């Protein structure tokens, strides 16, 4: 592992990385072009913040960002709070039903959102949850819950059972067991679960577009207002896209070690 790979491996690796990254690179530079330059693919231009100024003038960017942050972190916290006990129960009280329960949970995610929009919309309306942050938090908690349970379950499963056994002999209660033994050992795993849930909620566009309008609108709604290239405005579109993607991209990059280690879904043994 420690010897360097041949030079062509490096060249190939970088080539692949650049090709995959290219589309993001394009919006990143287009965002700093003028509208006239935006239509040519040139790399040589005078960067300008003009598009960003116009986007800020038009939209309350911070309000969208703060909604995105509240909704994605709020729902992630709530999902984990419900999912961790369930995963604990499934992992450490294994019964015949554990596997079935897990798979059933995942299957609820297969229900197409478009098919149930009107029922959910009517329910939200009657509950007064249209265009409310609470409403979105509830929806995201529910759609992410199965993934949360499953991931937490796999991390708990990886905890060496001897340790638990020893603790039980010492008379530790289930609560102590969870708090002092399990959570510390599976914390890295739970952190990557949380990260994945935040990413998924941040990028969810169907429910947010349909159930929020202004007070609760997250960045997906912000992007929808720039979504058709209106007239000669590609630079603005790029600036808005960059603004919508940048926070989560930064978070993902900073926490990428967590992701690279943690996204196992029980697949690594």
């Amino acid at each position: 592992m420690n010897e360097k790979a041949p030079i062509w491996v490096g060249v190939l690796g970088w080539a692949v990385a650049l090709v995959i990254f290219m589309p993001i690179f394009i919006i990143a530079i287009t965002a700093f072009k003028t509208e006239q330059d935006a239509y040519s693919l040139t790399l040589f231009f005078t960067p300008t913040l003009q598009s960003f100024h116009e986007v800020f003038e038009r939209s309350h960017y911070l309000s969208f960002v703060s909604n995105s942050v509240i909704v994605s972190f709020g729902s992630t916290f709530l999902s984990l709070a419900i999912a961790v006990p369930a995963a604990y129960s499934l992992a450490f009280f294994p019964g015949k039903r554990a596997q079935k329960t897990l798979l059933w949970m995942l299957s609820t995610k297969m229900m197409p959102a478009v098919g149930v929009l009107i029922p959910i919309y009517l329910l939200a309306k009657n509950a007064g949850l249209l265009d409310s942050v609470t409403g979105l938090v509830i929806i995201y908690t529910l759609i992410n819950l199965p993934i949360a349970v499953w991931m937490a379950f796999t991390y708990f499963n990886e905890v060496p059972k001897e340790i638990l056994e020893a603790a039980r002999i010492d008379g530790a209660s289930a609560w102590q067991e969870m708090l002092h033994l399990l959570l510390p050992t599976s914390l890295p795993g739970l952190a990557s679960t949380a990260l994945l849930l935040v990413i998924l909620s941040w990028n969810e566009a169907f429910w947010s577009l349909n159930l929020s309008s202004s007070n609760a609108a997250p960045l997906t709604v912000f992007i929808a207002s720039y979504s058709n290239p209106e007239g000669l405005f590609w630079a603005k579109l790029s600036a808005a896209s960059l603004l919508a993607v940048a926070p989560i991209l930064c978070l993902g990059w900073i926490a990428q070690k967590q992701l690279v280690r943690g996204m196992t879904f029980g697949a690594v043994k």
Partner: protein
Amino acid sequence: MKRNAMICAVSAATFAAAGFASAATVTIATINNPDMIELQKLSKQFEAANPDIQLKWVTLEENVLRQRVTTDIATGSGQFDLMTIGAYETPIWAKKGWLTPLNLPASYDVNDVIKPVRDGLSLNGKLYAVPFYSESSMTYYRKDLFDAKGLKMPDQPTWNDINGFAEKLNDKANGVYGICLRGQAGWGENMALVGTMVNTFGGRWFDQQWKPTIDTPEWKKAVTTYVDILGKYGPPGASANGFNENLVLFGSGKCAMWIDATVAAGMLYNGKESKVADKVAFAQAPIGTSPKGAHWQWMWSLAVPKSSKNQDAAQKFAAWATSKEYIQLVAKDLGWASVPSGTRESTYANPEYQKAAPFAGFVLNAIKTASPTDATVQKVPYIGIQFATIPEFQSIGTVVGQQVAGALTGKSTVDAALKASQASTERAMRQAGYLK
């Protein structure tokens, strides 16, 4: 890792300049076109003058907007106090009792609003929406390219003329296409143009018994002409182009001709946004075998839903946004060529507007002569030029629009597309109870 964190932090700080949204009382659902974005910008002056009213904007792309406002108003959710809706929705929704009739102050001078536009937004003599701008359709062309080839555009071209010009002017090697037309599927996109073509080739959507007539020779002639001309002389990717995309293409000098909404004139003549400001000229929308229904009528207008809890404030803002004063404000901010067009006689009577907008009288005439009640050669049971004012039309137009776009890309033939359209339209009409 540290570096990443730093880049992120610095960018976050740079962008933190924007303010927080303030609490609002009037929530406005609107479309993301340049006119509405200008309104959003200038509305700060309204808020300054009316400190008790605060505005919240929900700016959406046309399809999403339509979906959101329809769901909202049909379920009585009351999320929006003011909605941007079109010529199609207004009479239908007014009839269902979903909209509040407007109560405008005398200073609004309602009679200054161009009559056919006012009529299109009224039901039983009551006005249910105020027009923000209205449009018809016309032919734009590049005078320089026509001159270079020694061609002359008649004032009233026929589709035959257009076909000939497109062939001669098509210069793909230099990235100039003979013609740009709407190709994107949608009842408000490609079907707006195709609808007028059907009219002018003598066709109609339904006969007097509400039986669809999409499999008739008139339809075939219209759609074949459309597919041929755009397929042969149009830009690549025509099937994805709507109004906005074509505006970009024509504005950047890639099309020799373009038949589309009259509102584009203001943008094309604006040298800051368009590269062809000094080269563009215009003529009437082309005709086929009859002049009837060759140019469409559309208005984006503001309406107050019954479910709104802030009716008065919403009406007050709607009146302000469509007033003479607002037009003056835009003129001051952007110049007269860019003011909302097609709404008020006083705009067209203004010498400054006439000077800045050489197309003014022409557009006014197009808007005044577009007649939703007399748009077809044969009699029809519906009102409307490029659409029929019945609730089912939206669904029918969507499906037929998809089929026509399919024919345009060559994925199916015109015959097959029309046959499929006829079948699905018959199905829809039977289901809705028009046909037994």
